[in-house]
């Protein structure tokens, strides 16, 4: 048997842990379970949130700039008279100086993509079928950076030119058309055009699959009577939770109506935040329970080891080094439990992702483990282990060696 190579504190801490097999196994089990719960829950919730966000925001811009709403104003502001001001009907209008607004948006930090859109109501007609649709005049290269249309195409590519159009699969079904067929589109103002279908998309939302008709900007401008204009500017930002901040800055800089997804989906945001708070609460409780577990086991260990502590003190070990032994035990239990916990969480993710599936058969969440979450959980377990060991370690350090030996 080779002589021990570890430093004194490590050597003694490891031997003490090894000697108290059952206690060590139990507390390791506790830490492993705690870390696994934290990592698994964090991973699960963050993935489910990401899926929800992706599903909701996958088909919409993070920030949308629109013209200000038109409003009636009194010609004379006479405080002595009372007037009832009726809200004004909103007509389709272009954003004033939209090219400058696009440049303004592009110049903002944290803005990834900007796409001007000409959007307005129209009817798609074929034979006796007539469907209400939203005409979307886009620059395909810019728009695919707002909504990842390439990934949603079921037939053809997301490319528009001339009188080509791309429609959703539901609309195609309703009109009985497919790629290569023609469909007649008439805008509310009476302008119409015969469009050739060059692509079909399935965006995962039946309503949008039934309503969106993509054409070139120029054609949409012509049909919607917005020559040279755009109805809205769609924007994507780096971090979706920066959207509100970006929209407020753009509103202040442009004077337009600027809305972020956080405003238009405030219920979703509240739900996500509540979910995050619940997750944090669960994690906090688990951390406290793990800390109490480590602390209580080490307190018992200090009592059980008091004779050994006294002997070590008699042999020249200072109280700080005795304290170090028990702090190390906490750290070792925390670290080892964290490693095992991360492994268990990975196993749980593999298992449950194969068990729980969405309606279309895809896994409800991906079985991959985020390194950041795993590392932070391991770090938390290590720190909690050391902190939990603080009280028993101080108790051990303060122990009177004579009393300890006599115990």
């Amino acid at each position: 048997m080779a002589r021990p190579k570890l430093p004194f504190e490590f050597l003694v801490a490891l031997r003490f842990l090894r000697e108290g097999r059952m206690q060590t196994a139990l507390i390791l089990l506790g830490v492993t379970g705690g870390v696994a719960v934290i990592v698994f829950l964090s991973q699960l919730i963050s993935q489910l949130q990401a899926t929800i966000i992706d599903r909701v925001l996958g088909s919409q811009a993070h920030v949308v700039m629109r013209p200000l709403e038109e409003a009636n104003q009194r010609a004379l502001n006479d405080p002595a008279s009372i007037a009832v001001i009726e809200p004004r009907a909103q007509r389709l209008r272009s954003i004033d100086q939209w090219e400058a607004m696009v440049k303004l948006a592009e110049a903002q930090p944290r803005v990834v993509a900007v796409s001007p859109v000409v959007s307005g109501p129209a009817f798609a007609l074929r034979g006796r079928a007539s469907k209400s649709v939203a005409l979307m005049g886009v620059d395909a290269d810019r728009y695919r950076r707002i909504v990842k249309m390439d990934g949603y195409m079921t037939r053809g590519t997301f490319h528009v030119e001339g009188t080509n159009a791309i429609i959703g699969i539901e609309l195609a079904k309703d009109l009985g058309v497919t790629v290569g067929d023609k469909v007649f589109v008439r805008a509310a103002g009476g302008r119409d055009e015969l469009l050739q279908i060059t692509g079909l998309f399935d965006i995962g939302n039946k309503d949008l699959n039934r309503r969106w008709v993509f054409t070139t900007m120029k054609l949409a401008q012509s049909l919607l009577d917005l020559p040279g204009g755009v109805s809205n500017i769609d924007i994507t930002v780096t971090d979706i939770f920066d959207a509100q901040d970006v929209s407020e800055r753009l509103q202040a800089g442009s004077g337009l109506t600027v809305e972020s997804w956080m405003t238009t989906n405030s219920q979703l945001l509240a739900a996500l935040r509540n979910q995050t708070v619940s997750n944090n609460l669960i994690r906090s409780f688990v951390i406290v329970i793990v800390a109490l577990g480590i602390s209580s086991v080490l307190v018992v260990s200090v009592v059980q080891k008091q004779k050994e502590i006294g002997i070590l003190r008699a042999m020249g070990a200072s109280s700080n080094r005795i304290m170090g032994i028990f702090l190390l035990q906490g750290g070792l239990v925390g670290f080892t439990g964290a490693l095992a916990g991360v492994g268990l969480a990975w196993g749980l993710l593999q298992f449950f992702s194969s068990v729980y599936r969405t309606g279309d058969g895809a896994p409800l969440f991906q079985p991959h483990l985020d390194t950041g979450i795993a590392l932070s959980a391991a770090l938390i377990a290590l720190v909690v282990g050391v902190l939990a060991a603080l009280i028993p370690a101080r108790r051990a350090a303060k122990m009177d060696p004579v009393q300890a030996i006599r115990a």
Partner: protein
Amino acid sequence: MTAIVALRDLRKSYGVGTPVETEVLHGIDIELAEGEFCALIGPSGSGKSTLLNLIGLLERPTSGDLAIAGSETAGLNEQALTVLRGRHIGFVFQFHHLLPAFTALENVMMPSIIEQGVATADAEAIAHDLLLRVGLKGHEHKKANQLSGGQQQRVAIARALSRSPRLILADEPTGNLDTHTADDIFALLREFNRERGSACLIVTHDPRLAARCDRRIELVDGRVAHVSSS
């Protein structure tokens, strides 16, 4: 001959400042010379173990002077006392007090591991040599609970000697052993004392063993009642 231990008017009280304050040592004046082999005898409760703990720097006296290897200990902090204890003093306890999580070899190396921070090759060689000397060759890698009482006490003696201390304090090292084994252990301590020149202060109730020491100090009721030399 220089004194390894010098006590002057050493007193120890428990419960200081409370209504139950009790003085257990009432002004002890003792000197122990380098290499001396001395027995500390007396009835139970006379203060022998307390005196040994004070000399071992495991407890602080209430008053009086205590010098170890020429260093006055009164003004030293806990850390300095620990260093002094580790450097000059080896302990042998009645119930051997080996560390059960470690092997015999590791127990003997432990004082050196504490001092050096890690187990060195030198410390291992010394531990092997000491275990050979105390008759435990082949038992190096056994845990304490795999050894007999006499073997455990031999390991404890080897451990106390591992850093060649100038003073060995033995608190009834044979009190828990049969006569034959007790004689062996005592002979071992005596042998090391003569060979290495370590002073040895042994608390014992056994008059046979006390008679074989250079000097006997008898404590009665916390006072030195009688000192005799061979």
